[in-house]
């Protein structure tokens, strides 16, 4: 699909905005920091563990990736955002931590306190 005018771009922008809003109201989002720093710290394995766990337990959630947010030292970073809720960042996440994050936070909304870094907000 090619955008051939300003209006096309405007339309796409509105659509994507609406889509993003709708999604975050309906679905739980799990975002893994997949920059070079994250990957070097093991984000790939964490990502696999998340997918496996969701699959195993048949949980519906959107899993996506993002770049480096700066706290390279705390990588791998995993963000969880429940429908309509805040986005939380977990740091130094190991694959073995994944079940706790999924069952505690994703399923029940209980923040895994010993891993949580902060509530995400734009700086």
């Amino acid at each position, binding site marked *: 699909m090619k955008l*051939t005018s300003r209006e096309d771009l405007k339309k796409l922008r509105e659509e994507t905005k609406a889509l993003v809003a709708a999604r975050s109201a309906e679905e739980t989002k799990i975002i893994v920091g997949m920059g070079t720093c994250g990957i070097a710290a093991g984000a790939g394995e964490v990502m696999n563990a998340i997918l496996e766990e969701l699959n195993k337990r048949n949980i519906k959630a959107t899993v996506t990736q993002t770049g480096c947010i700066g706290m390279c030292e705390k990588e791998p970073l995993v963000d969880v955002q429940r429908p309509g809720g805040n986005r939380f960042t977990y740091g130094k996440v190991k694959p073995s931590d994944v079940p706790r994050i999924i069952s505690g936070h994703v399923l029940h909304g209980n923040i895994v306190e010993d891993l*949580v870094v902060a*509530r995400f907000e*734009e700086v």
Partner: protein
Amino acid sequence: MQLVRAHILVCGGTECTSSGSKQVQDALAKELEKHKLDKEVKIVETDCHDGFCEMGPLVIVYPEGTFYVRVKAEDVPEIVEEHLLKGRIVSRLLYKAPATEEQIPGYKETDFYKKQQRVALRNCGIINPEVIQEYIARDGYGSLEKVLFEMTPEQVIDEIKRSGLRGRGGGGFPTGMKWEFCRRSPGDMKYIICNADEGDPGAFMDRSVLEGDPHSVIEGMAIGAYAIGAREGYIYCRAEYPLAIKRLKIAIAQAEELGLLGENILGSGFSFDLHIKEGAGAFVCGEETALMASIEGRRGMPRVRPPFPAQSGLWGKPSNINNVETFANVPVIIKRGAEWFASMGTEKSKGTKVFALTGKVNNTGLVEVPMGITLREIIFDIGGGIVGGKKFKGVQIGGPSGGCIPAQLIDTPVDYESLIAAGAMMGSGGLVVMDETTCMVDLARFFLNFTQSESCGKCTPCREGTKRMLEILTRICNGEGVPEDIETLERLGRVIKNTALCGLGNTAPNPVLSTLRYFRHEYEAHIFEKRCPAHVCTALLVYSIDEEKCTGCGRCLRACPAGAITGEKKEPHKIDPEKCIKCGSCFDVCKQGAIIRL
């Protein structure tokens, strides 16, 4: 029949089972038997206590209803002995109500982010860099649209000029002015180039931007191309950044598919094609003339300027070259206006700068701060201070071409001019924090070693001079320094700085000159007293044993790999300086503090 005095409920749900509830049950059974409580206390396996799974395995002791969480088999004896035998609750295993969302601090409340201001990094760590829609949903490509339909190239240049944006690649040249030169340079074919070579060791801000938000760089380049009158651009990215290259390729393909790159963008009549060039090159390939030679397929060697790229650049055509971070700032400036951007920073240095904060500081990572923030704020507020509470000694800023700023200048504001005045430079944004265990001579040698080995070899002062400086520093560190060395280093440094052909040579002496300026006494200690105050230069260390303190325990003797330590048990030991290889093993193992290191 005995009365059951207590029930212990152990959760047998899948979750708890997988986290070890079976082992806990077994341990309980064993422990109860051991204390002969197996008749009085009954273990019950329960179903899942929905909602607490992440805290499993769960153990609930009735009749009190004490709720223990995350119980491990190792915890069981304590529960049995303390709770069941003595009636004391094991509080460390007690369930605590989970924090409510509000109790978790937001990013801005954390030290790390409190003083940061994310402009260039606005989307990094937020959007999925491989999905252009996520960029667009955050108004991405809106600035390009605005420029194409509402602004003339001159207006764009004016906007950038008024914003006060200066090059983030090191030199700090005003970006708007550079664009203007290129726009005014005659020629129908012009090029816009993004410098993503990022050769400074320890620097990775450009990589992060490209990996986390490639579209902001692409959009910035497209805006720049429109402003200078280019219709073709290159991103020169080091080959050691495969992920950045992959994301860039995806981003370019997606932008092309949407018609945000290519012919007649959004029907505006403006066309722009973007290519990626992988540079397997050396550090010097980041120098703009070397970089262009490398794109042309020639050896990446700098050439004399003028002519500047704006006059004669890629394939002899007027070209504009900017750094990744510089371009990433452009769309926001267009979106939010020059005034907004210029409201951040200082008189002459506007906006923010991204730094790679590393070294002996508690919070390392990538930080974006408004220009003019002090080093103290970066190191102590954002960085959380020095690791292990050691003494802060100085900071090397600007990578190997930068300089060292000592503790007494910690309130230096971070802007282009102040850093130069302090003998350092903004550089690409490396920021290495040093504590008292860093030897400044050794540090200067380390950085010079890098630049020296990266010299391209074209001009005499850099090729020959940095080698001689390095030889002298190495000698000094080896305890072979002579009194003239300091003067020679200063003379060579001064001449190389003034005469080298390109920025690599012009800045290579900076680490040496700045440490000579602020830490001259350390050089003097090495040369005249043959002593390394930070105890780093091995050749200068002397280990001996304080007979008063030595208890003759023999730890050092066993630890010494060179067999240099002798002594009878319970008698003071001795180190044979001939045999000692100065590894420091004895120093590390002695519990009496009897090893003297000089």
